[in-house]
C-alpha cells in the first residue's frame, strides 16, 4: 500500500506540473468536434458530345420536430419542395403558417385534402411559432 502511494505521488506531481505548464502557455488548445458532412465532389466523366450534364442536386435529410402531422408534412409539402423550407423560416405566428398552407392550396393548386391541410397547419403551429419553436 505504501509502495503504491509512493508510486502515485510522482505521477500526481507530474500531472499537476503538466497542467500548470499547459495553463501557463495558453496555446495549442484543441477540443473534440464533429466532422461535418461537407464532402468534395469527385469530377464527373465528360465526353465531347453535345450533352452538358451535372450530377444530381443533393438533398440532405431534414430534422423536423416530431409530433402529430409530421407524416402529412413529409407527404404533401414534399411534393413540390423539400421540408427544409419550413426550418429555414424564422418562427412565424400561427396565423402566418395558416396563410402559408392555404396559399399552397389556393394559389399554387397543391390540392391537399382538407383533413390533411388542417393537420399540417396544426403541426406547424405546434412546433414553428415564436412560442413553440425549439429547434
Amino acid at each position: 500500500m505504501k509502495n503504491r502511494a509512493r508510486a502515485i505521488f510522482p505521477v500526481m506531481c507530474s500531472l499537476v506540473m503538466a497542467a500548470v505548464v499547459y495553463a501557463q502557455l495558453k496555446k495549442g488548445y484543441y477540443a473534440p468536434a464533429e466532422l461535418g458532412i461537407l464532402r468534395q465532389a469527385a469530377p464527373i466523366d465528360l465526353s465531347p458530345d453535345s450533352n452538358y450534364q451535372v450530377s444530381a442536386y443533393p438533398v440532405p435529410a431534414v430534422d423536423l420536430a416530431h409530433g402529430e402531422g409530421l407524416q402529412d408534412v413529409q407527404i404533401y409539402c414534399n411534393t413540390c419542395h423539400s421540408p427544409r423550407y419550413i426550418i429555414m423560416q424564422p418562427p412565424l405566428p400561427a396565423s402566418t403558417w395558416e396563410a402559408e398552407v392555404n396559399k399552397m392550396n389556393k394559389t399554387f393548386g397543391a390540392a391537399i385534402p382538407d383533413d390533411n391541410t388542417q393537420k399540417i397547419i396544426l403541426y406547424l403551429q405546434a412546433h414553428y411559432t415564436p412560442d413553440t419553436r425549439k429547434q
Partner: protein
Amino acid sequence: MNATERCLSRRGLLKLLGMASSGIAASRWLAPDATMAQQPSPEKIMEPFSGPSANPHWNSLGPYISEPQKAPLILLTDRPVQLETPRHYFRTAFTPNEAFYVRWHLDGIPNAVDLKEWKLQIEGNVNKPLALTLPDLMQKFKPVSLAAVNQCSGNSRSRLLPRVPGGQWGNGAMGNAMWTGVRLRELLDMAGVKSGSLQVQFQGLETGQGPAGLGSNLFLKSLDLKNPVLDECLVAYLMNGEPLPMLNGFPVRLVVPGYFATYWTKCLSWIRVLTAPDENFWMKTGYRMPDTPRGNTTPDDVKAGKVKTIPLERFPVRSFFITPDGSSKIPSGMNVTLRGIAFSGFGAVNRVEISDDGGKNWTAAKLGENHGAYSFRTWEAPWTAESPGHHSLAVRATDEKGNTQPDEPVWNPGGYLWNRIERQEIVVGNAS
C-alpha cells in the same frame, strides 16, 4: 524481474518524467511567449435559425453545402435550390462563378442540357418566329460584354421586422459578373415585333409540380416592350468569360441591368411577344412592391387592404463592409483599411462615405476601378481605431441620380428592397 524491481523501475521513470516536466515548466515561465495568447473558448456553431428578432449576422445561417459546379455555399433550401454567397467572396468587384448565389422557384431544374436539341425560340406576335442554336447566338450576332449586378429581390429579407416568410437571405443573395452575349433587341428585331404587341415574356427550362396555368407549374416574367431597359438587356452565354454554371442558367440567361434578378430568366429558352398584359402569378401576384416611397408599408395597412402594388423593378442603392468583418479584434492605434462594395440599379455609384461616430460625420471613401454603371464598385478607406472598446462603423453610398441610402428600415410583406445603411461593429483592443 520481480514485483519490487518493476515497481522501482516504474517509480524511477515517473520521477524522471516529473522532474522533466518541472524543468520545462520552469523554463517556459521564463520564456516571453508564456502569456501571449488568450484562453480559447470552445468553437461555437451558428444557431440553426433566427427570429422573431432580426438575423444579426451578415449572411444567412444555414450550413454549407457542396452543389455541382459550386464551391461550398450557404444552404437555404435544397429542392428547389437556394444558395447564398459567403461574405468573403465580395472582396473583389467580380463574384466568382463557383461562389455566385443560386435561387430557383420550382423543383424542375435541369441537370443536363443537350445542345443538339436546345434552341432559343422567339415566338408570339412576330413576323418570323426564330429557333436559334447556341452557335447561332455565338456567331450570327456581335458579342456584347457588360458588368452587371444580379441581386435577388429578397436579398437581406432576414433583416425585416416583423419577420416575413420567404427565403431568409442574409446579404449574400447578390453577385456581379461580366456577362457576354447577344443584345435582346437584335433578337427581337430579327424576328420582327408586329404592331399591337405590348410585352415580351421570358421562359426558361424551370418547371414545377403544380397544375398548368399556375405559378407552381411555370416561372414566367415579362417586360413592357416600351421599357427602355430592353435596349440594355443581353442574352448571355458567358459569365466572367466562362460558360454559366447549370445552377446559374446554362446555356443562356437574360441579363436585365439594374433590375432585380427575378427578371434574369435562367436557362432562357422562350422569348414570347405578347399582345395582352402578362397576368401569370409571377407578374400579377408575386414580386410586387407597395406603390409607396421605398416600397415601405406596415402590417396594419396590408391587413386593411390599403396597399396598392406595382411590379418590382430596379434595385435601390446599397453599400457593404466586407473587411474587416468584426470576427477579430483590432489593436488600438493600428491603421487598418476598410473595404467593401457599392452598387445601384439606378446608375453608377459616385460616392461612398464612412462614419465612425454614429452617422454625425461622414468621410469619403476611395472608389475602386469603374467597371460600368451596373457593376459592383469596390471602395476602401483608412481607419485608425483610437481607443479600445466597441466601435460602430457605418457606410452609405450615393448614386449618380442623387439617391442616398437612408438609415430607416423598410418593411413590406414580400421582404423586398432592404437598403438601409449598413453597420459594422468592431472590437478594438488595448495594443499594449
